[in-house]
């Protein structure tokens, strides 16, 4: 009797509808874009009635997942390269740039930025014992930080300080918990409420991060996904991303 109950219960759970509405978009989103994305998704849902669900992690990880058949409808990367590679192999529609981001040196200590003339002096100082850089192989913001360090001739001499979190989200987490004294974070993290409790240096040597998105070929919700893609570039969408330091 109990066994029958358990089986029936399982069947019932499996039969539950996955969401309230049929129209739904699953987005794979680069971790740096989490804050504006959540606001955009909410605004879009209000306007269109289409629910947007999302997974936030490093661009490299999302790319590898998509290559292996992950069921995303749309991919918002933190670079141009990976969407372009998907497009070339017929896995996605034509990529478009949806945001330009910036990497900054952020510290949870509000007075940190008053103590040094610029970011280079800051990372060189003894006060910074550990410095977080998102894994440059898979996180474009980490790659931008590495090229700035190389451009300033600091990369090799600071090897002993580096810690490599998996994505830009974990980088900010390490810096905000004080696990590292400073981290190369996205400007978008630095301008949030939590980010404002610390301070940041801009990094002129770092290339701007051009972020491209694409609708994936295997989507079953093409119409909804394209609607959302278009929303990213509407004045409403642009207003939200600018609020978080993107252009």
């Amino acid at each position, binding site marked *: 009797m109990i066994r029958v109950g358990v089986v029936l219960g399982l069947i019932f759970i499996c039969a539950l509808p996955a969401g309230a509405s049929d129209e739904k978009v699953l987005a794979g989103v680069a971790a740096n874009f989490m804050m504006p994305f959540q606001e955009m998704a909410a605004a879009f849902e209000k306007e269109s009635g289409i629910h947007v669900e999302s997974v936030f992690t*490093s661009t*490299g*990880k999302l*790319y*590898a997942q998509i*290559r292996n058949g992950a069921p995303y409808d749309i991919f918002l990367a933190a670079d141009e390269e990976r969407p372009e590679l998907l497009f070339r192999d017929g896995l996605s529609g034509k990529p478009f740039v949806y945001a330009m981001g910036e990497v900054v040196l952020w510290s949870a200590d509000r007075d940190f930025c008053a103590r040094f003339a610029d970011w280079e002096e800051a990372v060189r100082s003894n006060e910074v*014992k*550990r410095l*977080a850089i998102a*894994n*440059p*192989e*898979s996180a474009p913001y980490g790659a931008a930080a*590495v090229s700035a360090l190389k451009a300033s001739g600091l990369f090799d001499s600071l090897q002993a300080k*580096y*810690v*490599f*979190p*998996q994505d830009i989200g974990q980088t900010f987490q*390490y810096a905000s*918990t*004080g*696990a*590292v*004294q400073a981290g190369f974070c996205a400007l978008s993290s630095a301008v949030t409420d939590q980010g404002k409790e610390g301070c940041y240096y801009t990094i002129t040597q770092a290339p701007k991060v051009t972020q491209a998105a694409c609708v994936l070929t295997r989507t079953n919700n093409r119409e909804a996904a394209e609607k959302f893609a278009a929303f990213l570039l509407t004045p409403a969408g642009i207003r939200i991303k600018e609020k978080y330091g993107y252009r």
Partner: protein
Amino acid sequence: MDTGSIFVPLWISFKLAAATTVMLLALGAFLAYLLAYRKVPARPVVESLINLPIALPPTVLGFYLLILMGPKGAFGKAWEGLFNSTLLFTFTCIVIASVFYSLPFAVQPLKAAFLKIDRRILENAYVLGLSPVKAFFRVIVPNSAVGFAAAAILVFLHTMGEFGVILMVGGSVPGETRVASIAIYEAVESLRYRDAWVLSVVLALVSFSFLLVVNALNRGEGNGING
């Protein structure tokens, strides 16, 4: 990033597992001894705490350790005061994390082995004038060799396969905290499948051979990890 050879992470994993095993055999034997032979206050609480890492997601344990061992955490601060260097993201830090993570895998088989020892042998030892410390080393340890072997192998393997805790507190520093499991994870997400394959095959072979040894121990002695 210059990580050197792809085998460096394997070496780090091996070093980590060996260091953790040595530390846990000592700590585990001490705790197992208390649990098996002594009156432990609030025993259910203590035993549950020791076994907690089996039930907790490694990320939860990792998160607590991240806060505790960070420059602002109580333990991290004390460490910095003592050794004038930060603790988090060092090899020592992942050894400490692994000791917590694998604690039950040392204590359980040792406790089971200790409880199996005939009380009369121990009582004889006491009657003959051996102090509890001497009795421990001369009577208990030699009579629980299988328990020690099982604990060592389980801890070693559990540490070789550790991922979540190190992901939280390791920081993937090349040559220091980037262990094999993390290197495999990063290789897969960077589409370096060949590296991932090589590392995975080696890890799988090592684990399999060690488990074969556990199996042989179990059969040979008719008692073992599950007592």
